[in-house]
């Protein structure tokens, strides 16, 4: 049993990061899991980076592409409020749109901008992050959101944070520029 436990512990140490045993554990007893395999000779390499950037997935570029008629109409209304200098009305209208489509990242992105227009910097950044979290890699929306975040950090006097955001913007822009020739 002791030998078995020692073997197991040894095995655990060599399997990088998969089976973390609770620190200070005296080794499994009762119903132990089948032992992991013995040490292996070589670690497989991570997949290599491609030389040519792949064409961007076909991400939606406008809200209309993923929104129902009701949300599209509310977003139009919100845009009008923004143009008329009524960002709070715009935010209220966008929140109404979110009740209909709570995971529409274009709406969250527009809501972030409406908060930025009201100098609600913390909320502008939070909403932009929420949009990023839901956008699942949509580069167009993510780029807009990072612009909002950069402006919100600037507004709050967070120069370092704004510089980080600017770096994100530059990287996204570079990816977009690199991919552009591939898009018809």
């Amino acid at each position, binding site marked *: 049993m002791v030998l078995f436990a020692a073997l197991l512990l040894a095995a655990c140490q060599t*399997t*990088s*990061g*998969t*089976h*973390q*045993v*609770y*620190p*200070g*554990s*005296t080794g*499994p*007893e*009762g*119903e*132990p*899991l*089948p032992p*992991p*395999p013995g040490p*292996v*000779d*070589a*670690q*497989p*390499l991570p*997949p*290599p980076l491609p030389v040519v950037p792949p064409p961007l997935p076909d991400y939606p570029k406008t809200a209309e592409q993923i929104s*129902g*008629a*009701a949300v*599209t*109409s*509310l977003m139009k209304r919100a845009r009008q409020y923004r143009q008329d200098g009524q960002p*709070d*009305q715009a*935010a*209220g*209208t966008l*929140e*109404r749109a*979110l*009740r*209909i489509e*709570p*995971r529409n990242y274009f709406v969250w992105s527009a*809501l972030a901008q409406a908060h930025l227009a009201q100098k*609600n910097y*913390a*909320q502008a950044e*939070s*909403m932009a*992050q*929420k949009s990023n*979290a*839901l956008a*699942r*890699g949509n580069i167009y929306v993510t780029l807009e959101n990072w612009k909002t975040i950069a402006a919100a950090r600037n507004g709050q006097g967070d120069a370092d944070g704004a510089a980080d955001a600017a770096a994100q913007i530059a990287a996204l822009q570079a990816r977009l520029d690199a991919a552009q020739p591939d898009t018809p």
Partner: protein
Amino acid sequence: MAVKSRSRLVILVSLLVLVASIGGAIFAGYLVKLDREIRERFAGARWALPAQVYAAPQELYAGLPLNSDDLVHELQRLGYRQDARLEMTGTYSAGAQHVDVYARGFDFWDGVQAPERLGVSFSGDVVTGITDIDKNQPLDLVRLDPMLIGSIYPKQGEDRVLIKLSDVPPLLPKGLVAVEDHGFYSHSGISIKAIFRAGIANLRAGHVVQGGSTLTQQLIKNFFLTSKQTWNRKFNEASMAMLLESHYSKDEILEAYMNEVHLGQDGSRAVHGFGLGAHFYFNKPLDELRPHEIALLVGLVKGPSYYNPRRNPQRATARRNLVLGVFRDEGLITDAEYQADIQLPLGVVGGRGGGVERYPAFVELVKRQLENDYKDEDLTNEGLRIFTTLDPRVQEVLETHIVEQLPEIEKSRKMKAGTLEAAGAVTSADRGEVLALVGGRDVRFPGFNRALDSRRSIGSLAKPFVYLTALEHPEQYNLETVIDDEPIELKLPGAPVWAPKNYDRQLHGPQHLYMALAQSMNLPTVRLGLSLGAPAVLKTMHEAGYDGDAKALPSIFLGAVDASPLQMAEMFGTIASGGFHASPSAIREVQTKEGKPLQRYPLQIKQVFADGPIYLLTWAMQKVMTIGTGRSAYSLLSPDTAVAGKSGTTDDFRDSWFAGFGADRVTVIWVGRDDNQSTGLSGSSGALRVWMRVMKDLHVRSLDNIPPASVEEVSIDPDSGLRADAQCVDAITVPYLSNAGPQDWAPCAAQGSQNGPMQWLKDIFGH
């Protein structure tokens, strides 16, 4: 002698004149004082107007998951009635896959919506389109008028909804005058004829059976005086009535009367005026009342308690029909209408207050949130319009299953009926809006609000926060990390030795991290917690929204933390929204009584957890539902609907909790006893039974399970926990934070046996 008597006469006359002058002066002064009182009372705001609280409006748009039966149910809740002619607002006509509605207009926060005739088409359980019938135009989006769900009136106070004479159906003022004060338009405040008639009737009876008061006198009595029947008061009343008539028009007096009159009692709330009366008894606006409904309200003026249509329906019917008879005799309705109307049922909405005061637990939350921004007087006097987040459909589902399941659970456990109590909350997953709240099994009773005020031990609902704390350290923990299930004894200074046990008092051997959560094992959780440290776990709880004062002790890993059901909804909401915290909000907007926007309560969120660890935790909480303590939910829910949750059971089965979410809704249910005795129920055998029924009826949306960029899904061999490929028959897919997954291949994998010097070439050029 003659001189003497003459001088006596002079003195007597002088005295009389003097007394008369003094009396006259005093009387004049008295009238001036009364006059001032009247004018002051009538100038400006005559009534303190309680704030009116509205539910969220039902939005209608193509794509909305709502079938025609649901819409009809919603319309009926709003007091709409079926009438194919669609001649007045508040009517609808329902067919298969189509409903026509004459929607009421409403002054929304962001603009006025005019009354309009709408055609709503359906395909199965989904709205496919909305048309403006009069313009024959498709509409993208419309709102129904929101339901009035309560008002904020002072303790022992009057509640009313103000109306204008110009807005009421003409039958009401005419009928009121015909029944209560026939000579209203010709007398000068008092009616000698009426007083004589009443006097004779009273003499005959030997006591007061009839009042000779005009409407003006009744108004004065309600406004200024007590109802004590004294000569002094009678005299005051008559004088003031005449003074009032000299200052104001008949219409102004009648309008004031219709807003002042007492029409019923609802606990400590006095229902005043026909505007509120219409809502209180019929759940609709005054201008939609039909003759027999108007007759009932007019009849109530004589004695709202004696003729209370909910308590004394027979008396109320007789009184209504008598009033309808007066309407007919006065030519206000035809004989045919009279004959038809006396056959109609009273049509009074059931239960406590009908539409108003229906949701005491939720309205209590609204009041508390308003108290942060408004003074009491603003709320009880200014007639504010409060727009809330309550979704009446969700509320109905939550109420139904709490009310129905508690007796079922009691019966199956052979408990005395009424032993159990319960509370529940439903919030929107991404915004933290409180959609429904129940504070006890007597859902209409405004008593102890358990959803807000009970602080009960949360038991295993604490575990997700222990595991989340671990998953935030990908260098140490992932879902496949193995944790021991071994006895633990903890000696803390000044406390007895703490030796937690598993729920089933058994040991199960080493467990994968996700399985320990799914099966709600105590010992692995305590081990994990100890390695993370109680302060780190408590910090996670606070970030998720916990605001209590629990100490950072190991007992918090197993839920020695007191919290309310709404607070648990807040904490689980943070997980449901991908790591963004939002405080539970019950209010969207506030308007002045004139309909001007006053304040908006904007959505506020804050990212408190990274999306990766939250995704992993949610994955494990889905295992709770598929293979763990929540799995019986799938006896009701469709297997295609991915939901995440956690059961909670406390020591000696005092509390039974279940908390969880789909993509759009977070629901928390608590079942227990007010005396904190054992119920014998676990989270799964108690609260889960309510929870799964609520989630099913809400048609909760499935979690989408698209991993964020920080997460990679790795196919692994469950036996070894190592990477699998097509060769491994039992391979499962497990999410890991990027670069934290296993690197080595499992023995079953083709790569596993071929790992050799040339492997890197294969990796580059593919297989």
